[in-house]
């Protein structure tokens, strides 16, 4: 177990720049998720960490030692692949044993027939069999050890791939979208199991996914990647509540965050000509974007800041998501309501919406967060 240090890694595929200077520090025993839309470079970053790709520039260090020039086999990392990549001709037990055989036995000991005759090889094989059965116990796949991967279900194969990764004691586990081939129910279950496995092993996990739910539920920290860069790397609650960038805010959170244009005229802050704050005194751009989570919006009859008509309702039982087309420009915002408010929501019903200024996130036109402006706006509202 050791920490991992990624320093300004770039990767060019021909002319295309896939990674644009990624820097990331992973602490020993941390579960970190690389999350982002497809094509953002998260898998490439993982493969560079693994050693399956070489970075164009930058360095990778594991436990303080620079491994940039080391090949994957010498880096002491384990990887679980999206397709599981199990050897189809070997049984489950043999699959799990491969990493140990490759690392602990000599080429002579591994020879198919002759190897079995060597006493040293027999002793080794005994140790390996023990390690395999231990790994199988952890993952509860002991009854499957004699089967071939072709006879297993997707979830079982996934466990075998995990078993092959954890049978030895690697510096870190790398997981490349390991749940994406499972059905929804199994995914939820396996998610919990991987998180528990992490707690139990106290090992470093680097987990690549495009699914924000997986990232939010399992990680100690999430690194949101887009366009070959890490936009923000922080614990899940910070990523959700305090994003640095409008792209992070938009990517994390379901339903998506509402973005509305905000204008500043002197000291007056307005959204669709509704005054938000009359005594706003911050040095901020004239045009800004405002991010409002669906749960920050509330229904109100008195002095609504926004008005609109309900155009779509999603009742999830415990909560209701209503899409409201705003009267001012027809853009839609999503509102989260509690079931008790169901009677006041109906298709086509006119509603008034309001929100607290301290739940507002402000971004400039390029999407960078304006925290100073938010503080100023909140303070101005309190004064008023």
């Amino acid at each position, binding site marked *: 177990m050791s920490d991992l240090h990624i320093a300004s890694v770039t990767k060019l595929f021909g002319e295309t720049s896939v990674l644009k200077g990624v820097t990331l520090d992973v602490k020993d025993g941390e579960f970190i998720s690389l999350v982002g839309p497809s094509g953002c470079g998260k898998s490439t970053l993982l493969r560079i960490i693994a050693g399956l790709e070489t970075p164009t520039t930058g360095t990778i260090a594991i436990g303080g030692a620079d491994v940039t020039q080391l090949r994957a086999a010498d880096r002491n990392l384990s990887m679980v*692949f999206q*397709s599981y*990549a199990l050897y189809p001709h070997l049984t489950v037990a043999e699959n799990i044993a491969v*990493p140990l055989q490759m690392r602990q036995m000599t080429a002579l000991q591994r020879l198919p027939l002759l190897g079995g005759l060597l006493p040293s090889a027999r002793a080794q094989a005994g140790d390996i069999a023990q390690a395999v059965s231990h790994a199988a116990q952890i993952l509860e796949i002991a009854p499957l050890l004699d089967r071939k991967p072709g006879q297993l279900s997707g979830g079982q194969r996934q466990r075998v791939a995990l078993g*092959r990764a954890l049978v030895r004691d690697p510096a870190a586990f790398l997981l490349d979208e390991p749940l994406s081939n499972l059905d929804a129910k199994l995914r939820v279950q396996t998610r919990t199991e991987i998180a528990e496995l992490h707690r139990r092993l106290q090992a470093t996990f680097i987990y690549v996914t495009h699914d924000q739910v997986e990232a939010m539920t399992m990680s100690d920290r999430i690194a949101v990647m887009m366009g070959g860069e890490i936009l923000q790397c922080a614990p899940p609650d910070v990523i959700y509540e305090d994003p640095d960038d409008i792209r992070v805010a938009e990517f994390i959170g379901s339903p998506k965050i509402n973005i509305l244009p905000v204008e500043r005229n002197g000291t007056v802050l307005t959204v669709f000509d509704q005054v938000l704050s009359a005594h706003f005194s911050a040095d901020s751009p004239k045009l800004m974007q405002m991010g409002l989570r669906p749960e920050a919006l509330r229904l109100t009859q008195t002095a609504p800041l926004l008005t609109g008509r309900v155009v779509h309702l999603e009742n999830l039982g415990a909560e209701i998501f209503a899409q409201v087309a705003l009267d001012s420009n027809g853009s839609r915002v999503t509102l989260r309501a509690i079931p008790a408010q169901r009677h006041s929501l109906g298709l086509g019903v006119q509603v008034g919406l309001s929100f607290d200024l301290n739940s507002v996130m402000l971004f400039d036109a390029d999407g960078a967060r304006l925290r100073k402006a938010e503080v100023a706006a909140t303070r101005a509202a309190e004064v008023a």
Partner: protein
Amino acid sequence: MVAVDASGATRVTKPKADNRQARTGWMLATPALVLMVLILLVPIILAGVLSFTNYSLGNSGFGWVGLQNYERLFARSTYEKMFVATFTYVVTVVPISVGLGLGAALLVHSLGRIGDIYKTIYFLPVMATLLAMAIAWEFMLHPTIGMVNRTLEMACGTWLEVIPFFAGGCADGFPIWLGDRDYAIWVVCFIGIWQGFGFNMVLFLAGLTSVHRELYHAAEMDGARSGWERFRLVTWPALGPTTVFVVTISCIRAFQVFDTIEAFWPQGGGPNKSAYVMMFAIFEKGIQQNLIGIGSAITMLFLLFVMFLTLIQRWLVERKVHY
């Protein structure tokens, strides 16, 4: 009562529907069955029947000779030579052409664009007419004016004479290849390999494209450092079905070798019948000498070998190499 009637009625109508469906099925299969019987089974049965006779083409009748033809096959030295030549050829050509095909496929596969050039070059002998190629080889292997011996003679007087083969060749003349009973079958083997391995290479190349790339990455992560380890862990098992197919096809092709021998020695299957392979024997006995009975007996034996090989392949494919 009604319910009983109804169930009784269905019990009657259902077999009827089944019958009709079965009849339609047979009707649809009939053309294929007829063709199979006419062009495959009937000739085989005819050959089987003829192998117990002394029939000759043009004769109005024939006599039953029982197992006499088969007894001859296992008693006469000519046929012993036939078996020796055939099995020498098969046992030499199959492993080497499969091995070379696999090696060439791995090398070509590891190259990028340039691989296509090699692919074309290695495949050229497969596309060429073997008969024409045999004539070209005959010229090259001519004892005095042939390219091969001329090239070998260039080694005379150099340090290469240390090697006994060159020492002997420079002193007493190099082998006369096609005219030497010790060399003839090996020359035929060499040409068989040269001609056949490109085909195997193409089959292996097709097999290689189906190997999952992530498996190589998994092998690397698992600590397979050398190319040989990756080959043993990933490539070779993945090529299992291809290999069984290639070996079977190569065996059958090797049993069928004929054109080279016909081109080199139209009169008799090599010096001292050292290259008298089965196909040539069938041709010589059955066609040239019009001994249909003995020709049919060799054919039946040939069929038996090929059938045996095919059965082994079926068994291997079903049991061993499909995961």
